[in-house]
């Protein structure tokens, strides 16, 4: 089998793959982006994390050249995405996987990819891309006969066919079942190994955690946190969360440390977990109690995310189903 996606010797230029400074955008009177700054370095997986309507897709659309920004600077592979004269060159080297699937319904998988491959100067081989996204065996099936998940795979394949240096993935696994999602994650990791720079949007913390080298959390058009998934929002700053249950008749007021209760589970957030745990267990032993389901954890990324984005939207709900 031919393998055409061997790691190309891609020089790593000094400036970032994507550079965004003070980006502003509004639709009518609604301000969607209010001064966003970030850099995406060559070779990394960079994630825009945020709830629905945070401005993730708008940011991508500006970088892709589909929307004209109202203010600020943007550079993609050294070119201004708002400048039409460089648009063609930019598209030669960027790939897109969009939320809304758009393929000709009456073309087969292979025809759809062969058609797109013809638009690029140095595309990947069609058969290889079909293998990469797991559509082998469905080459002759028409797009209209594909399942929702298979259509998404075809869309991923269209993003890869031009062998891009920079790949945009807009909510790439929305609508995937767990197995398909695992495959997609493996593919992203494989592409990263090959040296593809990836800019990913998601509202799913697991996805950001699993894939991203760096994350920015976008909420209400501003960046509320930035960093590696493991250190996001002071996740590594030593804070811990102690949870347990109390028998009926005890309230949080009787505890020796400040605590909150929700659904019968008592939670203690503390910067000095050793001391808090000692006080709690000491108190429980003296009262002759058993602390049911006692656990000590660092705060989950989900807790941090909800705190950062103001609990606005439950994070794991798919925002759009694929048509």
């Amino acid at each position, binding site marked *: 089998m031919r393998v055409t996606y061997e790691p190309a010797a891609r020089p790593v230029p000094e400036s970032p793959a994507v550079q965004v400074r003070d980006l502003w955008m509004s639709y009518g009177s609604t301000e969607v982006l209010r001064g966003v700054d970030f850099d995406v370095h060559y070779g990394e997986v960079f994630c825009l994390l945020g709830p629905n309507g945070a401005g993730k897709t708008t940011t991508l659309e500006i970088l892709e050249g*589909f929307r004209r920004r109202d203010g600020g600077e943007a550079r993609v592979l050294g070119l201004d995405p708002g400048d039409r004269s460089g648009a063609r060159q930019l598209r*030669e080297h960027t790939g897109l996987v969009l939320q809304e699937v758009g393929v000709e319904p*009456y073309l087969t998988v292979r025809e759809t990819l062969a058609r797109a491959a013809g638009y690029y100067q140095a595309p990947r081989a069609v058969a290889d891309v079909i293998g990469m996204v797991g559509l082998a065996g469905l080459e002759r099936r028409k797009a209209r006969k594909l399942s929702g998940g298979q259509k998404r795979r075809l869309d991923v394949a*269209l993003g890869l066919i031009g062998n891009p240096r920079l790949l945009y993935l807009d909510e790439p696994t929305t609508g995937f079942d767990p197995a398909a999602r695992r495959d997609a994650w493996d593919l992203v990791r494989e592409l990263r190994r090959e040296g593809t720079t990836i800019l990913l949007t998601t509202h799913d913390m697991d996805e950001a955690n699993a894939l991203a080298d760096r994350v920015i959390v976008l909420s209400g058009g501003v960046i509320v946190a930035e960093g590696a998934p493991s250190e996001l929002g002071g996740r590594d700053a030593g804070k811990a969360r102690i949870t347990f249950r109390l028998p009926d008749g005890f309230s949080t007021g009787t505890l020796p440390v400040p605590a909150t209760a929700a659904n019968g589970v008592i939670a203690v957030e503390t910067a000095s977990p050793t001391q808090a745990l000692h006080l709690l267990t000491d108190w429980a032993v003296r009262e002759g109690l058993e602390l049911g389901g006692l656990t000590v954890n660092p705060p989950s990324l989900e807790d941090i995310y909800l705190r950062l984005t103001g609990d606005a939207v439950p994070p794991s709900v798919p925002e759009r189903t694929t048509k």
Partner: protein
Amino acid sequence: MTTAVTDAPRPWGRRTARLLVHQVGYEQLSFWRNPQSAIFTFLFPVVFLTVIGALFSGTGRSSYFDGLSVLQYYVPTIAVLSVFGSCYGQLAVALAARRQNGILKRIRATPLPAWVYFVGLVAHCILVSVIDIALIVGIGRLYGVPLPSDWPQIVAMLVLGAVCFCALGVAVASVIANADAAPAVAQLILFPLLFISGTYTPIHSAALNRVAGWLPVRPFNEALTGLFTGHTGTDWRQLGVVAAWGGVGAIVAVRRFRWVPKP
């Protein structure tokens, strides 16, 4: 410091020509595989003329049909109908739908130049029209309508008409924001326009003919009918009206065309 991506210069002439052929080929494949476009756009004029021929093939010239035989009257007007459907009708509906479901955005994300996409579309529409017209003229011949003699002029006329109708189709697709409304709006324009232009039946109202004379279909009908019935010479006024509509369509299309749906 610039680190912009750069591409080596390339011989664009050959590559662009190949790209156009590539593009037209896939447009054709999508068109003929889609039963709606193949039947409605392509087959309808053919079936219409076949039925007319079966009903009226024996009848001679009649003053109701401007001194022509029924079939002599319908061969050119149905030819225009097929061009109108293949170009205007097809593009108005298909482009609005492609924008709505993200196909245009997907195309726009590739390095395919916009002009190649549109030239490819127009070439595809002309190709469909040519095949349709060949069938229509062939059916007319079976019913005894003589073949026209001035082919170069007919071809030039048809290409001009096709390009103008394509421009109008793109213009309508650009103005319609909602793809669900596109087929209805396109038909709402198409059907009355064809009717008052004498496509389905001769119009004997001078007022209606004057109005239709300034719209894009009747001048095309008249010019083509003239060529099919052996009148020589070019009617520049008729060509001018069709071309002017094409120009208006092109201006609206260029100014208003969108690759992505409104946010």
